[in-house]
């Protein structure tokens, strides 16, 4: 049987966008509290960064969105700071730019869906190396992490490590179907 991917059309585009990115209907206390992250610049990746920008005007929010998302949902340019190229499956080309004193956040980002723990680790490390954020925060729905289901999954999820960081926070809640991880960049005293 041939597999068929769901198509986004003019008729379903706006509803589809709201379903895939529910952030845009949430209150600030349902979003990641970027107001409490001690940096000036926030880089939300594939999680309605424009909405974070509206909801946290005190922060300098620089949304990165996937090319496919921007095209499929016809996002206007003012909603995006940079694009990550995801047109080739399993290959992400991160935009290069320098921003000091920043944090990267992934909030239920579809770009992370169906990734294995190993793939997540690779992706987080690429982002950490590219933007050198002080904090890398990821809130994920457990159901979208690809891993075995027939064991206690915590031990699999807890193996996530990001180079040159320490684990600042780690919340795992199987019943509520989420994991929240915050990695803090190590201090470098060599310079």
């Amino acid at each position, binding site marked *: 049987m041939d597999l*068929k991917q*769901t198509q986004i059309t003019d008729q*379903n585009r706006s509803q589809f966008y709201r379903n895939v990115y529910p952030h845009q209907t949430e209150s600030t206390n349902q979003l990641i509290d970027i107001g409490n992250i001690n940096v000036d610049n926030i880089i939300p990746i594939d999680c309605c960064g424009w909405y974070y920008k509206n909801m946290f005007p005190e922060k300098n929010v620089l949304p990165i969105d996937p090319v496919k998302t921007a095209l499929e949902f016809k996002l206007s340019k003012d909603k995006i700071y940079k694009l990550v190229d995801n047109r080739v499956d399993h290959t992400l080309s991160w935009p290069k730019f320098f921003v000091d004193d920043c944090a990267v956040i992934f909030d239920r980002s*579809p770009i992370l*869906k169906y990734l294995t723990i190993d793939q997540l680790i690779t992706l987080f490390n690429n982002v950490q190396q590219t933007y050198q954020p002080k904090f890398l925060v990821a809130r994920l729905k457990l159901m979208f992490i*690809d891993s075995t*289901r*027939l064991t*206690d999954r915590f031990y699999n999820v807890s193996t996530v490590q990001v180079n040159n960081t320490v684990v600042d926070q780690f919340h795992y809640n199987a019943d509520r179907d989420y994991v929240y991880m915050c990695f803090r960049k190590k201090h470098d005293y060599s310079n």
Partner: protein
Amino acid sequence: MSWRFIQLNQELCNQDRVILELFANKDVNYIGRDHEFKKLLNHNSSATNLILIVDNNVWCSDIIKMLNQHLKHPVETFYIGLNRYCIKGNDTEEKFLDTGDHGNDLISMIGNIVSKLNYSVIKSGCYDNDFGRYFNFVQPLTWVYGSKTNTNN
């Protein structure tokens, strides 16, 4: 507008087609949350054909409980469709096959559970590739079709 309609409009997804091929025009006892699809079936809560769809978050113990609850008289044949991403983990002392071939490991698990209830797996399949970036009606799906074990053999 429902999520099904947003994604599929009037078309059928893979799971719909599998079910309709297996139970064409037969009475079925449909247990699931998709009331739009249910309307396409001859639903009858006392039918001998069972369709059980598991697409909400469950532990392995919940699956065992559901199968114990539903796989019994008068059920003769059954279809179980699972979104394996919905399984939270194994909270039982049971040791299930865990080879890394996730869809087939799940089919093996279901096979073990139903055999204890005197049912056998006849057909199964999984659409488990990282095909779509959306969680949708197309993927992922693991399905098992079987019948009551013939105790005369």
